[in-house]
């Protein structure tokens, strides 16, 4: 159930991280140039931001309910260790809510400079919030900062638990960049569609170029960061790596398998590239990679879910990086947007695909941790609630989310359909430079 809520919440988080920054950039462009096109864009995107944030608030609230409703064992035992991260996250959420209120309702009611400034805390609070949430997740992956014996937690050091953790940094950077990639491509998708349908005025070009430029700069870097994260997983969570790669036995100079299906201790129908896994994971083609057989069968995560999600994420991520590189190349060589029809087809697909990659990536970290909720300390079954009726609640919540998703789609269509309603107003306001 919580998985469902997270899957709904995560894409919204991406918008929370990246959209304010992009909107602010556009508003700043308007202030620099006085060009009303940027004002139109910024106001249009502000409405999207407000609608998505409203939904983000509710999914976020639901998550905090669920923490206790579903994982009472986990909360009761470890709340004192990691809860601080959420308490601080609560504050940044708060700041975000406050300044979104000021920003959204401040259009046309605050001076331009004050309005631009009121948007800055949203960006900062988004950063702080993701830092906190990911610090908790990183702690679950790589727990420290407490002493645990016989079901009791003692000697608790929350600061060390949350921030003295090598996992935090690669997870944080990976997630933060993912936020910009998803927002960039998804925001550009409707404008790429317009290009395919033949509407390609300066408004559409600008609305397309800005988010895609963000995603294009970020997505190649994400490949590097992902590689860094994978190397950390290799040293700290070898079982997860083994599941990702479907490596049954501890192997020296392990091969990398592309595609295929894991069954009976090996990858079937896959393409094996000799020694690549050892090279990628440890920068040494002959390094030993620990296999699944290093832990008892009960402590292994579901291998095929892991492998498929991982390969999906890597494949889409690489594709997005190539798309970004295409954009960069065109910009560098010809100082213009790519002209090829194919680019816009790909860009249309990139938005939804980036969400798929995002969710696949989240499955990789979370399912890869199974059967542990706190890695090597507490299993998921120890943490889950004893209360009955979970399926009923699950069904109710799932139905609600389907409704909400439909509603969001509807409202976004409506917002996008309102044809440049703001433009005439913006134009009417600008002559005379008042």
């Amino acid at each position: 159930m919580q998985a469902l809520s997270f899957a709904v919440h995560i894409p919204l988080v991406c918008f929370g991280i990246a959209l304010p920054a992009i909107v602010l950039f556009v508003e700043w462009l308007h202030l620099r140039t006085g060009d009303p096109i940027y004002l139109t864009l910024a106001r249009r995107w502000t409405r999207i931001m407000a609608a998505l944030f409203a939904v983000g608030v509710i999914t976020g609230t639901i998550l905090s309910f669920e923490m206790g409703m579903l994982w009472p064992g986990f909360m009761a035992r470890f709340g004192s260790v990691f809860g601080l991260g959420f308490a601080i996250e609560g504050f940044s959420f708060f700041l975000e809510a406050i300044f979104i209120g000021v920003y959204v309702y401040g259009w046309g009611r605050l001076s331009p400079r004050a309005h631009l400034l009121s948007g800055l805390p949203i960006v900062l609070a988004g950063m702080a919030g993701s830092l906190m949430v990911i610090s908790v997740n990183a702690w679950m992956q790589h727990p420290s900062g407490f002493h645990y014996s016989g079901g009791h937690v003692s000697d608790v050091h929350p600061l060390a638990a949350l921030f003295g953790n090598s996992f935090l940094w690669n997870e944080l950077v990976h997630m933060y960049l993912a936020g910009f990639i998803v927002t960039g491509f998804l925001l550009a998708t409707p404008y790429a569609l317009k290009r395919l349908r033949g509407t390609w005025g300066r408004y559409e070009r600008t609305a397309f170029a800005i988010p895609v430029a963000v995603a294009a700069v970020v997505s190649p870097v994400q490949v590097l960061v992902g590689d860094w994260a994978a190397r950390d997983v290799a040293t700290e969570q070898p079982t997860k790596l083994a599941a990702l790669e479907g490596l049954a036995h501890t192997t020296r100079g392990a091969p990398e398998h592309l595609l295929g299906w894991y069954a009976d201790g090996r990858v079937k129908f896959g393409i094996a590239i000799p020694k690549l896994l050892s090279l990628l994971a440890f920068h040494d083609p002959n390094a030993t990679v620990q296999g699944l057989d290093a832990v008892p069968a009960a402590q292994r995560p579901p291998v095929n879910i892991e492998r498929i999600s991982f390969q999906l994420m890597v494949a889409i991520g690489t594709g997005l990086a190539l798309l970004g590189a295409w954009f960069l190349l065109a910009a560098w060589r010809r100082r213009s947007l790519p002209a090829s029809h194919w680019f816009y087809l790909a860009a249309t697909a990139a938005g939804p695909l980036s969400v798929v990659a995002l969710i696949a990536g989240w499955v990789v970290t979370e399912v890869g941790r199974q059967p542990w909720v706190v890695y090597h300390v507490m299993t998921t079954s120890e943490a889950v609630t004893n209360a009955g009726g979970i399926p009923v609640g699950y069904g109710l919540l799932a139905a609600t989310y389907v409704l909400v998703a439909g509603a969001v789609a509807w409202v976004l269509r409506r917002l996008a359909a309102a044809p440049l309603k703001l433009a005439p107003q913006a134009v009417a306001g600008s002559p005379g430079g008042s």
Partner: protein
Amino acid sequence: MHLYLLPILFVLAGLALYVVLGGADFGAGLWQLATLASPRREEEAEERAERIREHAHHAMGPVWEANHVWLVFVLTVTWTAYPQAFGAIASTLAAPLLLAALGVVARGAAYALRAGGRDRRELARIDTIFALASLLTPFALGATLGAIVSERVPPGNAAGQLFSSWLTPTSLLVGVLAVALSAYLAAVYLAADAAREGQAELVEAFRVRALLAAAVAGALAVAGLFVLHGDAHRVYHRLLDGPGLAGLAVSVAAGLATVGLVLARRFEAARGSAALAVSGMVAGWALAQQPYVLHGLTLRAAAAPHETLVLVVVATIAGATILFPSLGLLFGLTLRGRFDTGAEHRAPSEAPARSDGRAQGALSPLRAGLRTRLALAALLAGVGLLTVAEAPWAHGVGVACLFAAMIVGFLALDPARLAAGAPGAGEESAGGPPGGG
């Protein structure tokens, strides 16, 4: 003063603020429900009902998200500082909490939907969802609280009854009381907002509603004492002849004062006293309930280890120093009417159009080449430090380099200029309005 008491004070303060601010929000939704439910034939009455709904919607627009984050604050501090109590409450009372959660989802979704609503019928339908959810959520949260008051939540993972723990007289009473209080607070606040905007008709409408709701909430509170006597005897005693009496007295006095102020049309003062009445109720309950937080579990036993408590207190105080000025800004702007309809053109947030050569790209073209080279250099350094080097410090510097590469690279791209330039293989620039000047 013991350290383990400090976080509960924060939690209670947060709870009081949530009841007051979030409650006023729920109440606004309830008054929308009232206009939707009463059958109407004439066009004029329909329009009047719509004005009431619009007023209620607009009054909470800028602040509702902030109002509801108080609940998140209450939950996070509780689970950090009193993890055992939180685990027990949330698992035993999963059913009412799920109801509250569904209400929160429906409310937020309806709120977001309203932005896309086009005609009157659509808006009325969206408002109905919103209003029903505004009824469900405070009731469910009140019922949750009622189960804690009547001490039906034993410590442990879902150790209490899933349904009979909260389908009790106390829970029902607190739930209904929560709804009534929400309606009362909202009516007072909406009357004050209408008075500020000078809408005489709406002032009267909400003044009558405030008085009605005050009478109902007062009657419920008195009836509640009898219910507590039968169902939650320990709390009843500590409330009437124990430490809870002070809170109760403040609540009663402030409640009566509010009625007087509303009668005298001093709405801004009534805002404060109405909030005080509700806060007094929360304080009275807390004093009556302590030293136990759950059945047989004292607050001291439920508290987290020392270092966690210290950090929670420090984080809360540090957070509050940032939070309260920001909240002050938001409410200051809202209450001074800066976000009212009609205030829009007081300060147009449009920059003057420039007619110099910078109208299309914001950055000067000369340095674009330099930026590209800088970005490439930072990228190379980042790859070297992050991917090739092994030391953790090198990874840190590498990430910093990569961020620099991305930012400088983005500026070098200057997407606004790309878009302004040759229009790809498309049509003439017809979609956007022409540049300034």
